[in-house]
C-alpha cells in the first residue's frame, strides 16, 4: 500500500522544514564557521562569500539561505587555506596524523547503517535526520585530511593483523590518488541523500540503511590496501546499489538491477580468483608466508604469460565498472531505472571505482602486462569510449540514457589518461574522476528535479522550460558547460591535462598524437549533444501545456545543487589546489611503472619464474611479521 503511504505523508516536498530550534542550530554553526574563519585569518573572504551566497536564493527562507551560505563560506575558507602560497607557512609544523582517522571515516557510515536498524520505521523525520547527521559527521571526520600535505607517500597508515592464517590484514591508508576520491565520496553522498528526501517516501528506513551501507562500502574500497579487504568492500557496495535500483527504481527496475548485479559480479568473481592466485604465488615465492597486502603483492614479479591472465582478470572487473566499450551496456539501463540519488552516487562515485582500481591494482600490480595492452586499450578508450559514447549519446531520446552515455565518453578521457601514463595525464585523469563526479552528479540531480515533476524521461516531452523554470535552466546550463569542458569550469582542466599528457606520452607507441586528436574531437561532440539537449529542453516556445506552469527548483533541491555548482567553479578557477595533492602520488606511480618497464622491457617483458622484488621505498613500513619475509630474498 505504498501509494496510500505516499499520499498521506504530510511533509512531502519539504521534509526538512526547519523549526526555530533548528534555526538556532544553524545560526550556531554559522557562528562557529565565522569564529573558525577568524582563527585562520581568512575572515573577510569567508564572511563575504557566505554573505553573497545568502543573498542569492530569492523566495526562499533562511532554511535555504543558511546552508548555502555555510557552504560558500566553507569553500572560501578551503580555497584560502589550500592556496599554494599559503602552503609554505602551513607546512612548517606538519600536524600529527591520527592513526585511526581512516577507520573512523569508514566505520561511521557503517555504524550509522546499523543504528538505522534500531529506529522505528514510521519515524521518517528521525530517520532522515540520523542519516544526514551521520553523513555530515563522516564529512567532518574527513576534513583533517585537508590539513595534510600529501606528497609522494601514504598517510594515515593503519595496519592490523586480522586473519593470521592467511596473512590478511585490515590495512587502510590514503595517498594522492585516493585523496580526492574519498573527499568526493563524503561530499556527494550527503548531497544525494538530501536530494532523495523528497521523492523517496516508500520504505524510507531501508533506503537510509542502503545509503549508509553504500557510503561505508565505497569509502572502504577507496582506502583498503589489503586485497582481501578491498574485495570485501568492493562487493559490499554492490548490494545496496542493487537494492536501490531494484526497490526504488523505475518501471523496468528488476531487470536493470539484475543486469547490473550480474554484469559487475561476473567481472569481480574473476578478480577474486586472480587475487587468490596472486597470494598463492606470493606464498610460494616467499617460502610459505601468505599475504594479501598491496605493497607485498606489488613485489611479486610474474612471468609474462601468467601476468597477462592475472592482469586480464583484474582489468575485466574494473573496465566493466568504469564502464568501457564494449562492456558498458549495463550502465544506461542501470541509470535509467535507478532513482535520482542512486544515479548520482552511481555516476559520481561508483564508476570511479573502476578507474581507481585500474590505476591502483591493474597498473600497480601488473605494470608489464598493462603496458603490453596500453596502446590498444587507449585506442578503445578513444574510439569506443570518447567518440562512440558521444555519438550514441547524441541519438538517445531518454535524457538519463543520454547522460549515461556521456559518462561513457567522459570516463574514456580518464582511461586514456591512465593508459598514457605521464604525470600530466595521470593528474588530469584523477582530477577528471572528481570533475565527472561533480558535473555528471549535478546533471543527474538536475534531471531528478524535472523527473519528480513530470515523471517522464523523454526529451521530446520537454521544451521551452527556461520560461517556467529560469533558475533550473541556469543551473542546467552551468552543469552542461562544465560537462563540455568550458574554461573556468572544472571540466576544462581535466580534459586539457589528459589531452596534453596523452600527446606527450611515450607509452602509446606511434599513436599518442592520434589519440590526443581523437580526444579533442570528442570535446566537440560533447558540445554537440549537450547543447542539443539544452536547446531541446529549455529554449524555444513551451510545447506542452503540462510544462507551462512547472514550479522552479524548491528549497531542498537548491540546497542540494548549490554546493555542486560552486565546486564547478572552484575547481575551474583554482586547479592548483586540486592538482597539488595528486602530483606527488602521480609522480610516484609513474616512476614505479616506468622503472618496472625499464627493467623488463618490451616486447618480451619478463619470462622467468615468479620472484619477489624489493619493497617500494615509498610503501608504508611493513607491520611486524612481514619484515622477516622481506629479508629472505
Amino acid at each position: 500500500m505504498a501509494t496510500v503511504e505516499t499520499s498521506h505523508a504530510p511533509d512531502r516536498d519539504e521534509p526538512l522544514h526547519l523549526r526555530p530550534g533548528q534555526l538556532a542550530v544553524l545560526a550556531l554553526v554559522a557562528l562557529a564557521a565565522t569564529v573558525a574563519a577568524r582563527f585562520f585569518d581568512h575572515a573577510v573572504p569567508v564572511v563575504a562569500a557566505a554573505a553573497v551566497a545568502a543573498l542569492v536564493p530569492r523566495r526562499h527562507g533562511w532554511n535555504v539561505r543558511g546552508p548555502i551560505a555555510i557552504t560558500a563560506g566553507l569553500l572560501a575558507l578551503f580555497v584560502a587555506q589550500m592556496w599554494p602560497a599559503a602552503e609554505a607557512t602551513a607546512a612548517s609544523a606538519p600536524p600529527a596524523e591520527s592513526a585511526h582517522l581512516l577507520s573512523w571515516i569508514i566505520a561511521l557510515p557503517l555504524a550509522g547503517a546499523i543504528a538505522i536498524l534500531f529506529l522505528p520505521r514510521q519515524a521518517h523525520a528521525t530517520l532522515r535526520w540520523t542519516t544526514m547527521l551521520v553523513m555530515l559527521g563522516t564529512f567532518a571526520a574527513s576534513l583533517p585530511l585537508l590539513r595534510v600535505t600529501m606528497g609522494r607517500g601514504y598517510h594515515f597508515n593503519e595496519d592490523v593483523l586480522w586473519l593470521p592464517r592467511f596473512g590478511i590484514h585490515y590495512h587502510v591508508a590514503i595517498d594522492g590518488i585516493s585523496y580526492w576520491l574519498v573527499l568526493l565520496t563524503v561530499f556527494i553522498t550527503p548531497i544525494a541523500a538530501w536530494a532523495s528526501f523528497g521523492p523517496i517516501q516508500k520504505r524510507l528506513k531501508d533506503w537510509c540503511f542502503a545509503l549508509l551501507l553504500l557510503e561505508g562500502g565505497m569509502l572502504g574500497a577507496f582506502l583498503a590496501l589489503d586485497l582481501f579487504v578491498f574485495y570485501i568492500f568492493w562487493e559490499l557496495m554492490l548490494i545496496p546499489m542493487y537494492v536501490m535500483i531494484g526497490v526504488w527504481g523505475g518501471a523496468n527496475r528488476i531487470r536493470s538491477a539484475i543486469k547490473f548485479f550480474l554484469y559487475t559480479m561476473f567481472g569481480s568473481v574473476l578478480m577474486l580468483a586472480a587475487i587468490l592466485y596472486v597470494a598463492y604465488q606470493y606464498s610460494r615465492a616467499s617460502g610459505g608466508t601468505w599475504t594479501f597486502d598491496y605493497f607485498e603483492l606489488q613485489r611479486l614479479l610474474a612471468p609474462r604469460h601468467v601476468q597477462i591472465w592475472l592482469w586480464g582478470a583484474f582489468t575485466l572487473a574494473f573496465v566493466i565498472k568504469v564502464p568501457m566499450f564494449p562492456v558498458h551496456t549495463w550502465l544506461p539501463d542501470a541509470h535509467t531505472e535507478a532513482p535520482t540519488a542512486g544515479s548520482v552516487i552511481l555516476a559520481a562515485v561508483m564508476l570511479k571505482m573502476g578507474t581507481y582500481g585500474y590505476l591502483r591494482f591493474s597498473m600497480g600490480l601488473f605494470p608489464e602486462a598493462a603496458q603490453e595492452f596500453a596502446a590498444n586499450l587507449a585506442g578503445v578508450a578513444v574510439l569506443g569510449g570518447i567518440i562512440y559514447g558521444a555519438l550514441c549519446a547524441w541519438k538517445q531520446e531518454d535524457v538519463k540514457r543520454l547522460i549515461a552515455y556521456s559518462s561513457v565518453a567522459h570516463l574514456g578521457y580518464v582511461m586514456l589518461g591512465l593508459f598514457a601514463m605521464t604525470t600530466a595525464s595521470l593528474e588530469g585523469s584523477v582530477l577528471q574522476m572528481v570533475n565527472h563526479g561533480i558535473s555528471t552528479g549535478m546533471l543527474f540531480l538536475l534531471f531528478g528535479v524535472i523527473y519528480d515533476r513530470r515523471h517522464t524521461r523523454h526529451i521530446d516531452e520537454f521544451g521551452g522550460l527556461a520560461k517556467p523554470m529560469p533558475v533550473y535552466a541556469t543551473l542546467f546550463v552551468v552543469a552542461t558547460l562544465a560537462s563540455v569542458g568550458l574554461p573556468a569550469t572544472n571540466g576544462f582542466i581535466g580534459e586539457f591535462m589528459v589531452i596534453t599528457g596523452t600527446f606527450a606520452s611515450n607509452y602509446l607507441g606511434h599513436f599518442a598524437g592520434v589519440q590526443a586528436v581523437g580526444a579533442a574531437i570528442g570535446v566537440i561532440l560533447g558540445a554537440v549533444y549537450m547543447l542539443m539537449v539544452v536547446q531541446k529542453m529549455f529554449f524555444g516556445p513551451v510545447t506542452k501545456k503540462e510544462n507551462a506552469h512547472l514550479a522552479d527548483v524548491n528549497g531542498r533541491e537548491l540546497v542540494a545543487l548549490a554546493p555542486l555548482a560552486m565546486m564547478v567553479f572552484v575547481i575551474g578557477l583554482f586547479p592548483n589546489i586540486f592538482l597539488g595533492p595528486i602530483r606527488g602520488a602521480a609522480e610516484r606511480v609513474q616512476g614505479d611503472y616506468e622503472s618496472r618497464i625499464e627493467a623488463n622491457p618490451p616486447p618480451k617483458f619478463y619470462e622467468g619464474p615468479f620472484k619477489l622484488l624489493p619493497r617500494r621505498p615509498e610503501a608504508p613500513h611493513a607491520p611486524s611479521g612481514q619484515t622477516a619475509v622481506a629479508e629472505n630474498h
Partner: protein
Amino acid sequence: MTPTTLALTTLVAPASAALVLAVVPGLRSRGWPAAALCILASVVSLGAALGVLSGCLADPTPSVLAVPWLRTSSVTVAEIGVRVDGVVASMLSVVTLVALSVQVFSLGYMHDEPRPAFGRYFAYHALFLLSMDVLVVAPNLLQLFAGWELVGVTSYLLIGFYYRKPSAARAAVKAFWVTKFADMGFLAGLLTLFVASGSFGWDAHLAPGTATVVTLLLFFAVVGKSAQFPLHVWLPDAMEGPTPVSALLHAATMVAAGVFLVVRADPLFAQAEATRTVMLVLGAATALFAALLALVQTDIKKVLAYSTCSQLGYMVAALGAGSMIGGFFHLTTHAFFKALLFLAAGSAIHAVHSNEIGDMGGLARRMPVTGGAFVVGALALAGVPGFSGFFSKDLVLEAVEGKLASLPWAALLATAFLTAFYMGRVVVVAFFGAPTGEKAERAHEPGWSMRGPLVVLGVLAAGGGVFAAPFAHLYGREYHFEMGVGPSLAAALAIGGFGAAYLVFGRAKGAPLPAPLALVDRVAKTSIVNRVYEVGYRRVALALADGLAWIDRYIVDGLINLLGYGTLEAGARARAVQTGLAPDYVLAAMLGVAGLAVWAVLR
C-alpha cells in the same frame, strides 16, 4: 597606477559587475540597476584601457603581471595574468570603447524588453566584456584560448538572447558548434606548440615544419572565429541576436578575435611562410566571395554580416602578406565603422520594425542623425578618401601588392568596388528616395542614448585615419602616406562603386535586379556551403550516430542479453535432467562409476 594594474582593472570591473549581477537576482530582475552597473563597469574599463594606451604611447616596453595557474610535476604549465604592450593597449581601447557605445545604445534599443530580460541582457554584456578582456590581455596562448572559449559561450548566450524564438536558439547553437569545431584546431595547435617548445608562449623558435603545423592549426581556429570561407556560415545566421549584439560581437570584437590571435602570435606565423600564403589566398577569396553575397541580400543586417566576412578577409589577407600593422589597423577602423553601421541599422530597424531594406526608404529625411551616421559608415567602409577605411584599406592593398602575381591584390581591388556598390545600394534604397511604407513615413529619430553612440562612433569612423601614425608608433614602425597609384585606384573604385549603385538603384526603385546580380542571387539562394554542412551533419554524422546507437542497443547489448537469455534457457532445458525419479539417478550413478572404471583401466 602601473600599466599592469590598469589592465587588471579592465578585468576586475566587468568581472565584479558580472558576479554581482549573477548572484543578486534582485538587481537583475529590476533591469535598470543591472544596466547602470554594467555601464559603470564599462566606463571604468574604458578609462583604464585609455590609461594603458597613453602609457604605452609614452613607453612601449611590454610588462607582464602573472601568477602560476596550472602546474604539473613542479613545472609551471601555464600562468594567468595580464600583459601590456602595444597590441594589447590598442585592442583593449577598441574593445572597451565599442562595448561601451553598444551598451549605451542598448539602453534605448532594448527599452521595450521586460525588466528581467533587460537585466539579463546587461549581465551577459558584462560577462562578454570580461571574456573579451581576458582574451586580449592574455600573457600566453593558453589564457588566450580560455578567453576565446568564454567569448564563444557568451556569444552563444547573446545570440540566443531571444531564446523563445526557435530560429534564434538554433542560430546560437550553430554559431557555437561551428566555432567550437574550429577551436579544435586551436587546441591541437596549442598542444603541438607545448610539446615542441615546452610552453604556451608565442615567442618560441620552432623547426620550420612544426611552425607550419602549429600555425596552420591555429589558423583553422581563426577561420571559424573570424568567419572565413568555408566556416563563415554561422555569421549570417547569428544576426538573429539583437542588433546591438551584432554590432558588438559580429563586427567589432568577437570576430576580430581571430585576427587578434594572428597578430598576437605573429612571431610564430613569421616562421611559417606556407601558412601565410594560405592566409593570403583564403583571405582574398573570402573578401571577394562574401562581397558578392552581400550584393544580393535584402535584409540590412545580412548585408552587413556578409560585409563583415568580406572585411575580415581583408585583414586575414594583410596578415598573410606579412603586414601585421595593415591587418590590425584595418581591424581597428573596421571596429569603428562597422559598429557604427550596425547601430545605425539598428536604429532604422527600431524605427520601422523591419530588417528589409525595401521597407525602409527615405529614412535620411526622417532620421537625419541615423541617416548621417549610416552614410558616414558606408563611406568609411567603402574606403572613400579621407575616411578612416581609406587609410587602413590602403595599408592592406599596399601589403598584398605584388604577392602571388598580384592576384590577391586584384581580388581585393575588385572587392573594394563591390563594397562601395552594395553599400551604395543600401544607402540609396533605405535612406534616400521616397518612403516606401507607412512605417517608414512615420519613422522618427530615437532618443539620445541611441544617438550619442552614433555620433561618437561616426566621428571615429570618419576621422580614424589620424590614428595611423600613433598606431604605427606603438609597434615601432614609421607611417607615411602618399597618394600613389594604388590609393588613387582604390579611391576611384570606391567612388565609382557608389556612382554605379546610384545609377542602378537610384532611379528604378523596386525594379528587378540587373541580370548579373540576378545570377549571383540565384547562386546565393542555393546556399551551397550550408547545404554541404547540412548533408555532412544529417547524412553523415547523424546517420553514423543513429547506426552506432542501433548497434549499441541491439548488437553490443543484444549479445549480453542473449547470453542472459541463453543461460536461462539452458537452465530450463537442464532442469529436465532432474526428473525426481530414483531409477534415473541410480542409472546416472552407475554410468558414472562405469565411466570412471573405464578411465582407470585405460589411463
